[in-house]
């Protein structure tokens, strides 16, 4: 299988490229980037041909593309890729606007191509184990989830609203929201959010708390803040405190690391030894293509999490609870 990558704007593109490089049945053969120097660097690093023209790139012999461009550009890139008959793995969030996400889903369906959204945290073994436990009823009914996806401020286009769609809320609500939807097989009923720009001198929010009720009555809070200090030993993490009728479960997805007291560089670091979720995400996407099966994480999954993000912004602005209605 020949795979192409649209843009290295998102840092995960490097991880994906590395995994494609090592995959026995796939090869990274083409790269397009609207930043020529970045694109050329990636091309040199991974030995794939660089295209500065998107149409040319899409008419190459790639079977599928990974869209890792800025959030606001996802719609354009995914729609064009689908029109060229290419299967798509698209970075999260799916898009910056609901109607864009809907167009992407529709276009991929019309052109008979796979649309998978990059939610790698689903592939963390601890997360899979939690889902099994929940679905097996080991915790009983899940009454509440207190979730966090903390990080550090990424800078660059992530804090330019016209490129990213928003700040920490856009970047980090979606991972936990996707896990909650997937584990509970449930949708959000109402959203309340408090947001702020407290840590950095930027034009988008860098912190907040989202308070949700699911259709089943489960209560959920998500903290997507870029609140990890620069001296924090880890980029951030994903944690969930889950309360069920039969018990409680504390989940710290990225806990599998050693603590490194680094005298050379004068800092303390957590070095992960966990299995690589990105690798399993790529493997899964390639397997979808190979066996022409429905994607594990669909465009709809991306749309549902985006709806929650948009409602969170609306709630923050209005200081009211927003009821979610779905198409």
């Amino acid at each position: 299988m020949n795979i192409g990558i649209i843009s290295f704007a998102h840092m995960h593109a490097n991880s994906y490229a590395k995994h494609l490089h090592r995959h026995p049945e796939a090869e990274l053969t083409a790269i397009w980037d609207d930043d020529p120097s970045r694109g050329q660097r990636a091309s040199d690093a991974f030995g794939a041909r660089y295209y500065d023209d998107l149409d040319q790139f899409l008419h190459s012999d790639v079977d599928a593309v990974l869209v890792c461009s800025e959030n606001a550009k996802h719609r354009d890139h995914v729609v064009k890729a689908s029109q060229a008959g290419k299967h798509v793995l698209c970075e999260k969030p799916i898009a910056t606007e609901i109607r864009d996400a809907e167009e992407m889903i529709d276009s991929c369906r019309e052109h008979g191509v796979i649309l998978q959204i990059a939610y790698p945290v689903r592939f963390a073994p601890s997360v899979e184990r939690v889902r099994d436990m929940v679905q097996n009823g080991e915790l009983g009914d899940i009454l509440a989830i207190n979730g966090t996806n903390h990080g550090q401020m990424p800078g660059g286009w992530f804090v330019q609203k016209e490129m990213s769609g928003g700040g920490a809320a856009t970047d980090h609500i979606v991972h936990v929201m996707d896990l909650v939807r997937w584990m509970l097989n449930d949708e959000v009923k109402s959203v309340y959010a408090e947001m702020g720009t407290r840590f950095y001198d930027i034009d988008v929010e860098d912190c907040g708390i989202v308070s949700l009720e699911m259709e089943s009555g489960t209560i959920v809070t998500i903290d997507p803040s870029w609140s990890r200090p620069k001296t924090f030993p880890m980029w951030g993490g994903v944690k969930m405190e889950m309360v069920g009728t039969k018990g409680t479960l504390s989940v710290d997805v990225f806990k599998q690391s050693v603590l490194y007291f680094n005298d050379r560089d004068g800092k303390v670091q957590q070095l992960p030894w966990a299995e690589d979720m990105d690798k399993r995400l790529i493997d899964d996407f390639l397997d979808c293509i190979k066996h022409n099966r429905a994607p594990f994480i669909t465009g709809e999954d991306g749309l549902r999490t985006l709806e929650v993000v948009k409602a969170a912004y609306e709630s923050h602005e209005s200081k009211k609870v927003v009821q979610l209605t779905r198409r």
Partner: protein
Amino acid sequence: MPKKECEKEMSAKSRRSRTIHLKLGRMKTMLNVAVIGLGTMGNVHVEAWSRISDVNVAAVSALDREKTEAVASQYGAKPYSQLEALLEQPDIDLVDICLPTYLHKQFVTKAAEAGKHIICEKPLGLDVKEAQEMIDVCEQNGVELYAAQVVRFFPEYVNAREQVKKGKIGKPGIVRLSRGGPFPRAWENWYADEKKSGGLILDMMIHDFDWLRWTFGEVERVMARRVVRSEGTNPLEYVLVTLRTEDGTIAHVEGTWAHPSFRTSFEIAGDKGMIVHDSRDSAPLSLHLRAHEDKGADQGVAVPESPLHKDPYQRQLEHFSRCLMTGARPIVTAYDALKAVEISQAALKSASFGKPVEIGKHEVN
């Protein structure tokens, strides 16, 4: 340290017209305290008082006669089964009320009318109106009312606040607080009756609401979500509250009566750094005995263990008794306790209606 804090607060709030009457008369060297209620907290207080050198536990009173007499005999106090008889004793200076919340107002009123100074366990009252009435009756009778918001005396919480005030974390952004453990079982299961206890939000989360206000200022808005399972032998309650303080800080407070063992934690993040604490990671001792008896079903209320020479309850009661003797303003006032009740009530209302609740601008008393 407490006196300096008192002085600062006194000058800052000099507009408040609170006059402190000390009915102690001549210079007293020994205070006589009576402890009312001998449940978990009553016992903790009696034990703490016994370690405070210039306070004498003169009397104890509770419904359970046997328990009252046992405690009285252990601490050299006089047992009383009737509150009125106790309140008639002229030598009793201070009454320490360790009763369920729904009894606070009634007992505080009686003690105030008998001219006794009062320490009252938290929450001060079931609602703001009650709390205000309690403050008023004490003021009218010229007696002190101290509110036992004990988390202000836990060293890790005092320390964290100091770091914030010193600017160690810079401008605060997100404050995460957590507290709780198993569902508390006590006399007549009063915790499970929301009308008597206010449930988890009023009974326990009030600690974190008070600390939040003490450290970051007035709370502007509260959004609470709550789950309760009260039927059966295995009740639980779990609450997640989102708050905004007037200075823009956002707080997330988790309260639980659904977890197997009691623990507290905080994570205070600002633009210059972050402070984290978890009680599970800060105990110097971890003891596992090889074969242990199963405890009875009635395990009482979970009380955090503090491996300190002077535990927070002793610090608290010592502070109040010193303030009573010197006339100094305590580090937590009855008004603070009322404001904490106000936040809890806003959270209860929010959880009930599924909407955020704004807290009115605070009036200067």
